[in-house]
């Protein structure tokens, strides 16, 4: 009697232990596995701030003394007269097949008569190999010939669901006539600006850019998302866009000083679209910048600039 109940007791304990093992251990193992693996993907390690340096920086930021210690920017060399810069971009490669855009709205206007809109990010003139829509602008100029921007509006039109100007270049403060020549309504959205407005058919609205863009910024129509252009606004107006044959002209640049120019192309794989070329004579950098110095009334032609296919994609 005593023995059998003892056995029963041992049995009981065994069973309890087994139940514990099977169920609870499984749950615990699952929980542990979850916690160890985690639900979020591993995040890239981030740099740690240097507390000591930060303290020193903070001291200079809060002290009023250092504010008065800041020196005005060193005056750039003051030359006289004005010069002109010319050049020409050629595409040294074979551009790939033209890619049609996916047009799925308002097809009665946007695909009128079977017309197909195409991707314009790499426009190469088949006859001359000229690369269009390369932007060249001065990073800094000490003098500007025309003190105030022109009051003649730049027309920025859209027709058959395409911006007629693939790259819009204007001076800050210069009026831009955002126009719509389509029988349907559009909206024009300039990224990073205050401008995203409705443009009814056959009408226009005037926009005066308030600030510089730095590198060109995207212009889109949200109603027809395939519509894309770029805009670049400069305070001094020293900005040019290469034409169909790849040529560009920057007129009335201040002579007698070293001017650094920035070059951009939509398809460039450099940082922020910077077009880096191998041109040691012009001190061309991977950030797409080169330097020139003009004499008064000089028309400097830097000749043809070959853009390799590896830089701009094929």
């Amino acid at each position, binding site marked *: 009697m005593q023995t059998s109940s003892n056995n029963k007791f041992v049995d009981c304990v065994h069973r309890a232990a087994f139940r514990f093992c099977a169920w609870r251990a499984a749950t615990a193992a699952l929980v542990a596995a979850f916690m160890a693996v985690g639900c979020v993907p591993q995040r890239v390690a981030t740099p740690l701030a240097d507390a000591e340096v930060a303290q020193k920086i903070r001291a200079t930021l809060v002290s009023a003394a250092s504010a008065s210690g800041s020196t005005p920017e060193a005056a750039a060399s003051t030359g006289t007269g004005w010069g002109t810069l010319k050049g020409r971009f050629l595409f040294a490669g074979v551009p790939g097949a033209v890619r049609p855009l996916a047009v799925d709205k308002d097809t009665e206007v946007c695909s009128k008569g079977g017309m197909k809109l195409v991707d314009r990010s790499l426009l190469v003139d088949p006859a001359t190999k000229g690369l269009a829509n390369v932007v060249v602008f001065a990073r800094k100029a000490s003098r500007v010939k025309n003190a105030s921007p022109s009051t003649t509006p730049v027309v920025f039109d859209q027709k058959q669901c395409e911006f007629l100007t693939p790259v819009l270049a204007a001076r800050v403060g210069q009026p831009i006539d955002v126009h719509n020549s389509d029988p349907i309504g559009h909206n024009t959205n300039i990224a990073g600006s*205050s401008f995203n407005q409705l443009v009814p058919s056959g009408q226009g609205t005037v926009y005066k850019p308030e600030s510089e863009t730095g590198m060109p910024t995207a212009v889109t129509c949200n109603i027809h998302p395939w519509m894309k252009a770029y805009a670049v606004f400069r305070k001094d107006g020293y900005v040019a866009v290469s034409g169909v044959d790849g040529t560009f002209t920057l007129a009335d640049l201040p002579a007698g000083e070293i001017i650094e120019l920035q070059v951009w192309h939509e398809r460039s794989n450099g940082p*922020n679209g910077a077009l880096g070329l191998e041109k040691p004579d012009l001190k061309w*950098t991977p950030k797409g910048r080169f330097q020139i110095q003009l004499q008064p009334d000089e028309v400097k032609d830097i000749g043809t600039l070959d853009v390799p296919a590896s830089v701009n994609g094929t």
Partner: protein
Amino acid sequence: MRATPMHSAHLVLASPMQLANCLTEIGRQASRLAFLLLCTLVLASVIGCGATPPAYFRPNMVESTKQRLNPEQERQVATVLLAMFGTPDHPVALAETGLNEAKLHLAAGPVRSDIVGRKNGLYREHCAHCHGITGDGLGPTAAFLNPYPRDYRPGVFKFKSTERADKPTQADLVRILHNGIAGTSMPSFALLSETKIEALAEYVKYLTIRGETELTLIRAFFELDDDAKGTLPETREFLVEETLTPIAAKWQAAPAAAIPVPPIPANIDLVASIAKGRELFYGDKANCVKCHGVTGLGDGQANDYDDWNKVIVEADKEIRSGTEQASQASTAGMSPEQLADHRLQLVWLEKFHQVLDGDALTPRTIPPRNLRQGIYRGGRRPLDLYYRIYAGINGAPMPAAKGTVPPEDIWHIVNYVRSLPYEFDGELGADRPMVAPNRF
């Protein structure tokens, strides 16, 4: 077996059966205890015994990787931000920010009570689980919400009483906190005291000014001249006067940028106004129909992204095209320098890919609002609808009607939009079925 409870002997000398039952019970208890012990052990081993590490602001890895900052440059940005803004536990605000540090301390830090029993750490109590410690909209719950929580860092806010590109006013932020945002996961915090809501609004401003400063600093590396050797100047002139002040000034200028609202036209005939608004809605001038759809269900143009998601979509595109180009390049004809560049490009592409995996949510398109539900995220007062139509919605595809549609006509559209949830669907005609579009 409870026959003779009177006899104490039986109680002491329980039958073996009773003993076994009792021991089994003890065994069960012991197993439960062992389970708890095991759980505690597992937890302890995973969490560790050390103190919780202090909360930290996560750097904007998407932008710094996009701009190809090297680790030293990333470190400089982190250091400068620490100097300018402090940490999540100890925020500091330079005078130029115009922020109130006392309010910030009420909202910042871990949840705790101060010496007189006031609760501090409001941001972490109420906001951080969605909007993240950094205000990057990447809190632990963010991935499960639709729409995603707002990322404050670009400094763009949708629902406000100011012009499209301007910052919201303090009252705008407070209104959102007070009312929540209908149709989203943002709840109302109306149960909090006014002081607490004001403190939270101040802290949101702190996070957004910090985030925008960070973006500006990261982008400033590209603008550096080559003789700067890839280091930002750590001077007051650059950090405060050129970088921080223009950002803070926009916040201080917000009250002056209020949208002018003409009074609702007097003795207006509501039926006529709605009819006029309907005409404008479908017309080419206001063109609401293109996105909100002929049915008003939000089923028009619907495959666009908002500005926050667009950043990720563009980054993704850049990685794809970069990878494609790199894989096609033949390394055979490369010079040593070109080969080194090629390898750097591959390393960068891999890093960018990892950064998007951990520091960004899967991009989602932005559906135009379904106007037949009567749910308006930015508020349902006629005035709120006026603001949205007049100035558009910053960060979203919604364009401004300002300049194209005269103010009194905007009021007609407001009236029509407000009538839409009650419009008889038969008016649409048989060719316009009322079927809500798929959301995903």
